[in-house]
C-alpha cells in the first residue's frame, strides 16, 4: 500500500468513524435505557412544526417546575430528577449538579443543560416524514393535552427519543 492509498484510507475511515459517532449515544441509550413517558406541554399551534421536525416542549424544560431550582444552576450541566406518581406519570422532582447515587425505583435522573431560561435534554426535536406533517400538526392541535413522548434514559442520565404518542396514534420513525 503506497502513501497516497494509506492516507486516503485513513481519511475515509475518519469520516466513517465520525458518521458512526453521530447516532452512537442515542443507539446505546435506546438499547440499554429505561422507558419513561413524558407529558408534552401545549405548544404554540402556529409554530408547531419547523421544517420537518416537531419542536417539543416539556414540563421538565421549565426550571421553575423543580422544587430546588435557583440561580446556581444557570448555565450549568444539571441532572433533573423525575418522580413517578401513583398514576404512572413522571413529574419534575429536584435538580442536582451531579448524577444522584442510589435512586429508588420510582425516580430517574436525566442529564440536561440549563440555558438560563430553560433546561435542554437533547430530546427537543422530533423528526417526522414529510407525508405525516399535516396529520401530526392537526393531531397536536386537537389533542395537545393527550400528547406524550416516550423516551429512554440510560444509566448515565442520557435521554433518547423513541416515539411520539398523540391520542391513540403512535409515531415511531
Amino acid at each position, binding site marked *: 500500500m503506497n502513501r497516497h492509498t494509506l492516507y486516503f484510507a*485513513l481519511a475515509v475511515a475518519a469520516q466513517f468513524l465520525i*458518521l458512526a459517532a453521530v447516532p452512537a449515544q442515542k443507539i446505546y441509550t435506546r438499547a440499554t435505557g429505561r422507558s419513561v413517558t413524558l407529558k408534552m406541554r401545549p405548544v404554540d399551534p402556529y409554530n408547531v412544526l419547523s421544517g420537518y421536525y416537531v419542536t417539543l416542549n416539556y414540563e421538565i424544560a421549565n426550571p421553575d417546575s423543580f422544587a430546588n431550582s435557583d440561580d446556581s444552576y444557570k448555565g450549568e450541566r444539571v441532572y433533573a430528577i423525575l418522580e413517578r406518581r401513583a398514576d404512572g406519570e413522571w413529574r419534575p422532582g429536584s435538580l442536582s449538579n451531579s448524577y444522584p447515587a442510589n435512586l429508588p425505583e420510582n425516580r430517574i435522573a436525566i442529564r440536561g443543560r440549563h440555558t438560563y431560561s430553560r433546561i435542554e435534554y437533547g430530546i427537543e426535536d422530533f*423528526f417526522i416524514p414529510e407525508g405525516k406533517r399535516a396529520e401530526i400538526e392537526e393531531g397536536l392541535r386537537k389533542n395537545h393535552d393527550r400528547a406524550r413522548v416516550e423516551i429512554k434514559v440510560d444509566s448515565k442520565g442520557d435521554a433518547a427519543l423513541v416515539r411520539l404518542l398523540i391520542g391513540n396514534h403512535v409515531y415511531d420513525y
Partner: protein
Amino acid sequence: MAPEYNRSVKFRAALKREIPAWTEQGILAEDRAARLRSLYELDDLGKESSRLLSAALFTLGSMMVGGGVISFVAAHWDEISRGPKVVLLFAALLVFHIAGYWLRYRSAWPRLGHALIFCGCLVFGANIGLLAQAYQVSGAWYGMFGVWALGSLAMAWAARSWITGLLVIVTSFTWFAGFAEDSHERLAIVYPPLLAAALLPLAWTIRSRALNTLTYFGLICSLPVLTLIRFDNVRYVLIAVAAGGFAAWAAGEFHRATGIRKEFGAPASNLGLATLASAAYLWSFHWAWRWSDNIDWNHLYWLIPAGFAVAIGVALLAKAWARMDESQRRSAAGVAAASLLLCLSPPLNRFGAWPTLAANAAALVIAAALIGKGIVEERRLAFWAGSLFVATLIVSRFFEYESSLLLKSAAFIVCGAVTMIVGVAYEKFLHRREATAQ
C-alpha cells in the same frame, strides 16, 4: 528582490501570439524566443486552460449527478426503514470516495476523481444530517458543521484537495460563528490560529493560491465575529478588522519580497490592503464613532487572536523588509503606519474628532501607498485604485458634512479636474518610461 514576471494567462496568450511574428521579422532571435517560451511556460497554456475547464466541468457535473442521486433517494426516504437507510448512507459515501480515488490515482481522469472526492465530502455532510434525523439526534445547530469540517479536513489533506479545503473554511466558519455566539466566546478564540494551522500548510504544500487567499479571508472575518459577539463597543471592531487585514497584507509582502511561494504574494497582499482600505473608509465617517466610551474589560479576550495576528504580521514584514528596495519600504511603511493608526483610533474616542481624523489619515496613507506603488512599479491598477480611493474619500466627506452647494460644486470641479490632470500626467509618465526602456 527577485524579478516579478507577469504570469497572467491573458499576457502569456498575447505573448504566444506575438512571438512568431517577431521572429519572422527578425526582431527576436530563435534562441531568445525559445527562452521566452520556456520562461513563461507558453507551451503549457493550452493544457492549462483545458485543465481548468475540465476541472470546472467535472466538479459541476459530478455535483449535479450527486444532487440528482440524493434527490432520488430523498424522494423515497420516508419509505425506507432505519437499517437500510444507514447502509445506504455509508454505501453512498464509500462509492463516491472509491470512484474518486480510483479515477484520481489509477486512471487518466485525475480531475474527475478530484471532483468526485469533493462530492464525497458533500455527501458526508448530508449523511451527518440524515443520520441525526434517523436516530432523533438533536442538539446545537452548529455542531453538525463542526464534525463536517473535521471529516472534510482529513480528506482535504489526504487527497491534497484545494476545493475540499475551501469546504473546510465554509463549514468550520459556520461552526465557529454558532459556537462563539452560544456562550463559548472565550473558547472560540482558538479558531483563527487553528484554521491557519490546518489550512495554510496545505495551501503551501499543494501551491494553491485560492486556498491560501481564502484561508486569510476566513481569518480576517473570524476576528470581528469574536469582537461583535459579546463586546458591547462596536467601534473596537475596527481593531480586529485592521489586525486581520494587516496580517494578510504582511504575509503577501513576505511572499513577494522573498520570492518564497511568490504566487501567493499578490492575492494575499491585495486582500489585506482591500480590507484595510475598506475599514479605513467605513470608520472615516464621523457617525461610526457615535458609540459609548465604555469598555467591557471582561470581554477583551478577542484581543488575544487579534494581537497574535499583528505579531505574525510584524514578524513577516520584518523578514520581507531586508529584501525590499527603498521605494517598496516607503510604501510598506505607509501601510504599516495606516494599520497602526486604525488600531489606535478606537481608544482616541475620548478626544473629540481625533478618531475620525485618524481613520481619514489612515485612508489617505493607504491611497498614497497605492499611488506610490503605481508610479514606482509602473502598475496602472494600483495607481488608479489609489486615485479612485482619494476621490471617493473627498466626495464622501462632502456628502457627509453640511456645506453650501457652491462649495460642493467647487470641490467636485477641482477634484474632477485634478483626477484628469494627474491621470494624463501618469499615462504620459508611463509612456516616457516605456520609450526610455525601448
